[in-house]
């Protein structure tokens, strides 16, 4: 078992790190303060291939593996939770389901624009009444000749309003429960499809989060992904893979917090010495570093299992659960080491702590991850 990254992965990590440090870091505070969607960064990410990393070149992707992709999300998250969320939601939740479950025609139509970043993607499952209980879909799709008519509202949709292409879950047959859910590719600009106001959030404030509203929106039947009734399975499998990238995002936030804390404690002096010289600081950072490294290992392991074509669902849930919990805990403890300065918005640490919280909730809450892991244990 070789824990060393391949030379390719090392060089890719260098690319991501340099890009994040030069292009993302200088804007991170402004993105948060002004709740600004970082369009220029997204365009540059597309230019260098970072919006289609793990997809085959025949569809415009970069032909790299899943590990290469999550490493990108991790490096971006070290400096900006918003930017990393945009990339992960686009790649994992929109590009991936079209690639994994779409027809050849759908792939050729949508993937080249998405993988190049000419178009951005989103994913719409959550509704006001359907969060963790995602089978309670109220958005209806009714067949009408060669089309489906969509009515309903989705909420808390990442990249809402900014994305051009959305994967939308709808109820086509309520009597069948989960097996009555169908997924569609829906394009921005479709008559009857509009956006609600943007939510004001605790963290990842530059990420566009809003309602999607469907009022007799006409969607061609050929935009259905998979068959009628397969929608729930598609959404669940999409989330399964996606949670590894969310784990990487959480990890990146924790690592970014750790890095700036190490720098700060060496500079900050109290009682005639740097606070780094106090045992409490050293013990805290030693413990934090151990937990971050463990989280990274479990996250990379999940990605490698997926790349190897082996079952990865339990590892993905473990990774999301551990990385999210660790990020939330680590960012809070790092802020504590900053003391009073950590509470000031001028310093990045409080933003990292605010950003970290959502990782325990979106794309499957910590509690959902525990359900998934427990199911794999086959104990009930």
């Amino acid at each position, binding site marked *: 078992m070789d824990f060393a990254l391949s*030379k*390719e992965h*090392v*060089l*890719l990590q*260098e*690319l991501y790190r*340099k*890009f994040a440090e030069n292009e993302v870091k200088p804007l991170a505070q402004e993105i948060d303060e002004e709740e600004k969607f970082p369009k220029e960064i997204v365009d540059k990410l597309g230019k*260098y*291939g*970072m919006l289609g*990393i793990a997809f085959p*070149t025949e569809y415009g992707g*970069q*032909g*790299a593996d899943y590990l*290469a992709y999550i490493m*990108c999300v991790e490096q971006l998250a070290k400096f900006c939770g918003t930017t990393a969320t945009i990339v992960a939601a686009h790649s994992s939740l929109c590009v991936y389901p079209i690639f994994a479950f779409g027809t050849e025609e759908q792939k050729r139509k949508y993937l080249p624009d998405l993988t190049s970043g000419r178009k951005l993607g989103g994913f719409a499952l959550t509704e006001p009444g359907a969060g963790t209980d995602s089978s309670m879909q109220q958005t209806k799709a009714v067949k009408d000749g060669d089309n489906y008519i969509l009515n309903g509202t989705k909420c808390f949709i990442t990249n809402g309003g900014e994305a051009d292409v959305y994967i939308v879950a709808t109820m086509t047959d309520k009597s069948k429960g989960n097996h009555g859910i169908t997924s569609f590719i829906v394009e921005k600009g479709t008559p009857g499809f509009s956006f609600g106001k943007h939510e004001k959030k605790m963290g990842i404030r530059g990420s566009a989060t809003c309602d999607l509203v469907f009022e007799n929106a006409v969607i061609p039947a050929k935009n259905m992904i998979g068959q009628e009734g397969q929608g729930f399975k598609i959404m669940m499998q999409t989330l399964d893979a996606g949670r590894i990238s969310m784990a990487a995002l959480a990890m990146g936030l924790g690592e970014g917090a750790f890095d700036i804390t190490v720098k700060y404690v060496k500079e900050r002096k109290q009682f005639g010495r740097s606070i780094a010289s106090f045992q409490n600081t050293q013990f805290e950072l030693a413990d934090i570093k151990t937990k971050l490294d463990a989280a990274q290992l479990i996250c990379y392991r999940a990605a490698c299992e997926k790349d190897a074509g082996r079952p990865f669902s339990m590892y993905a849930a473990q990774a999301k659960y551990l990385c999210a919990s660790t990020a939330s805990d680590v960012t809070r403890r790092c802020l504590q080491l900053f003391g009073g300065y950590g509470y000031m918005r001028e310093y990045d640490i409080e933003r990292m702590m605010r950003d970290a919280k959502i990782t325990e909730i979106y794309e499957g809450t910590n509690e959902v991850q525990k359900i998934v892991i427990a199911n794999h244990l086959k104990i009930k």
Partner: protein
Amino acid sequence: MKIVVCVKQVPDTTEVKLDPKTNTLIRDGVPSIINPDDKAGIEAALELKERLNDGSTVTIVSMGPPQADVALREALAMGADEAYLLSDRKFGGSDTYATSTIVAAGVAKIGYDIVITGRQAIDGDTAQVGPQIAEHLGIPQVSYAEDIQIEGKTVVVKRKYEDREHVLELPIPCLITALAELASPRYMSVRGVMDAYRVKQVKILTFEDLKDMFNPDYIGLQGSPTNVFKSFPKQAKGKGEYYPDLSADEAVNTIVAKLEEKHII
């Protein structure tokens, strides 16, 4: 057009410290980068290739230990077409003259139309190797290039001075040394990294490959006419002598007397 760019892998001197006892760089644990002037050279070459759009190629050449492979891969990942690493134990310890002897031999063996080097390396700071390579190859050179254009069979270079610029024309083949301001280097692309390791190659040229192209007496530690005797941070100048309350004439006389005393005039 075959554009050859000479690059050096150097320690990132923003992170490096001087050992106070020996006054040499502590290189352990310091990340290695492509020398910034050289990287601008790579970018300029890639932009020239794109503008020419006629099948012109960009070849990277570097002299260094096996670890320099990663710097060449980075250049390939930026879009260079091929890369050569001139590496051999016999090359070790080379000063600027010996280095330029070896690199010129490598460049001559590979073939070239335009050679671009960085102005100077951030670890050596001599700015000698680029111009020396041009002399070894017997080709015209312009240094401190701020802009490079190709017009037919002529290269037009804007050369930067402290307070002005010169615009010079060179025939092909020629050598140009690049300032970091010449071009803003692009990032590697994800696909570029994959190609750098899976499709493109770093070809290694050893002493055996090049020995017919240079005089072996002038390579390596033995062949170096100079060696680094001492490195030290520049000391602040002394306080100097202070003459207050002089008239203009008295001040001039004082200064002239001092200069004569020190045999400067």
